[in-house]
């Protein structure tokens, strides 16, 4: 479903991704681990189409379609979802309003009817309950004054609502205590499906105890340097990134 070949990308002329290859099939969960500065977050931003990042070489396709030719919103509409490491605050825009605007924007773009408010409310309540998100939280300004855990649950709620084809999770475990980590992971696991792919970016193995990956990659110096099964994550946990970091320097 996601096919990345020899991807090179820079920010302000500084190369970050240097020939990255990755193939994710529908139904698979891929974990990408690596030391700080290896380019993990950059990969997520480049996939999602964040301005400022310049792709200098290579390709990335989602279900055969050239992602790099599309604007950020067009990629979202094609089914690419990025769960942000630091979700943004938008004061004065109720979380509920944001969810509705996003869902309807996607439906409209796909030529579907907008969801009427009662049906939408019901859908949100259903998804929010599972994530322990209160009605009060939905009424508050988007991410404004949310705790780290609330922000991440809110990301998963958006993911659940928008039903993307490919979910990219950028350090979703950062800033979470163990209880929040469980809730968030359960939310993600509930979304695992045959027709959906996941790229889970994390620094620590602990997230992968909750979201079990099919394949684990190690990233360093802007490319995938090792690929293995879930046992690779444990090995990294035991030995650290020293070998890769030294290499990266």
């Amino acid at each position, binding site marked *: 479903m996601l096919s990345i070949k020899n991807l090179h990308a820079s920010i302000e002329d500084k190369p970050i991704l240097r020939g990255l290859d990755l193939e994710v099939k529908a139904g698979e969960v891929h974990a990408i681990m690596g030391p700080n500065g290896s380019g993990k977050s950059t990969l997520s931003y480049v996939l999602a189409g964040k301005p400022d990042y310049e792709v200098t070489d290579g390709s990335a396709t989602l279900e055969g379609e050239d992602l790099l030719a599309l604007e950020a*919103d067009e*990629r979202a509409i094609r089914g690419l979802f990025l769960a942000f490491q630091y979700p943004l605050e938008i*004061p004065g825009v109720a979380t509920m309003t944001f969810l509705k605007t996003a869902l309807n*924007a*996607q439906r409209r773009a796909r030529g579907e009817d907008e969801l009427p408010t009662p049906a939408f409310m019901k859908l949100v309540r259903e998804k929010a309950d599972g994530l322990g998100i209160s009605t009060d939280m939905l009424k508050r300004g988007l991410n404004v004054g949310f705790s780290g855990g609330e922000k991440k649950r809110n990301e998963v709620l958006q993911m659940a609502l928008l039903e993307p084809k490919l979910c990219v999770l950028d350090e979703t475990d950062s800033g979470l205590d163990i209880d929040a980590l469980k809730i968030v992971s359960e939310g993600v696991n509930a979304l695992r499906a045959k027709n959906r792919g996941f790229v889970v970016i994390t620094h620590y193995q602990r997230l992968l105890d909750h979201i079990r990956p099919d394949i684990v990659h190690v990233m360093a110096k802007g490319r995938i340097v090792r690929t293995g099964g879930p046992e690779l994550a444990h090995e990294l946990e035991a030995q650290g990134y020293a070998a890769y970091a030294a290499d990266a320097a």
Partner: protein
Amino acid sequence: MPAVQETVARVRAIDVDQYKYGFVTDIESDLAEKGLSEDTVRFISMKKCEPEWMLEWRLEAYRRWRTMTEPNWARVDYPPIDYEDLYYYAAPKGTKSGPQTLADVDPELLRTYEKLGIPLVEQEILAGVEQRRVAVDAVFDSVSVATTFKEELSKAGVIFCPISEAIREHPELVKKYLGSVVPTSDNFFATLNSAVFSDGSFVYVPKGVRCPMELSTYFRINEKNTGQFERTLIIADEGAYVSYLEGCTAPMRDENQLHAAVVELVALDDAEIKYSTVQNWYPGDAEGKGGIYNFVTKRGDCRGKNSKISWTQVETGSAITWKYPSCVLRGDGSRGEFYSIAISNGRQQVDSGTKMIHLGKNTTSKIISKGISAGKSQNTYRGLVSAHRKATNARNFTNCDSLLIGHDCGAHTVPYLEAKTSTAVFEHEATTSKISEDQMFYCQQRGLSEEEAVALIVNGFVKDVLQQLPMEFAVEAQKLISISLEGSVG
């Protein structure tokens, strides 16, 4: 290209096409001779069939105006106005200055208001609203062309009519209150208005009466090279309540047009006046050609105990805005509020804010101002909060936020605070922010287009003020905000 950069590029491309009220009504007009003299003043007074005392009042103002100079302290820049090159009176031919029934109104005029989305038919209601009725006074250039629901209002004792009619029919009220809030000598533009004002609305709500419906006036400038000098006077007698809304539009013309209005509000003991404005005069084109000069004096006098005056404004139009709706908090325990959304795009210049003048004891005021600048516009908030030495326990809260879209616009905040009593407590909060590229990216990552993302963020930014508008107008205002910023996002 980063999102906001692109936004900026598109702001640059803003086009007058977005101003959808820019059509001209083809109608013959009665014009006064160009230029301003005592004769012009007499002509206007005669056209309005005014009594002698009104003419004298005007002439006094005119003579004073001749001795005054145009103020230049506002942060706006425009070529000198040639006051001799303007028409001071324009009326659609055939309109008598007297009141008329809807059946008498030129169908061309009715179509104009229909195009503007303003129903001059009593059974109708504003878009999307049920069961609420709004009485409308429609002012076209210098005359009021129709006022709806007059009869029904008069049953409640409410007087709602063109001010020219009030001068003839209710001289005792007009004499008592006209100029009592904004004296003829107040400032250059107010004095000019006092000399040549042509029409506007008059409202009187008697003691203890809650006005049974929203009142509104729609101002339309049509004629070329014509100044519109509207004069509005609203009086809420003891314990009365009234909510009033004005809307403004004008055709697209290459020449600048002058609009110098005066609005006076008087609230007696325990009375409340809520005054809302949706100002969408033609702003000029992308290069700053044409557009309305909006030099307006609006002031409310909380004359009675525990009275309340609240100004809410959504300012999206005009080439230049010079406007400070103010409250004089004279009565003990009175309250003044000012809620403002001022949007500038293209080459618009806005210098707007409020004055809260605390004279009575235990008076309170609140100012919420949201300025949004895009394009190459300049947007200044200028506000005065003052407490007289007898204004024991005066309280003010001011929140003044500016939002910038792009890199070529400016936002400025100029607060003046004067407390002559140690018991006064003034709070002032101000922020300036930009729509960040990260916020834009976040919204777009969820599937919102650039345009939708900006509209969403801006609507969040102005929410506190939108909530103050009567519901049906809030919806209109929200749409207007999106339209005004359309240029900034493509």
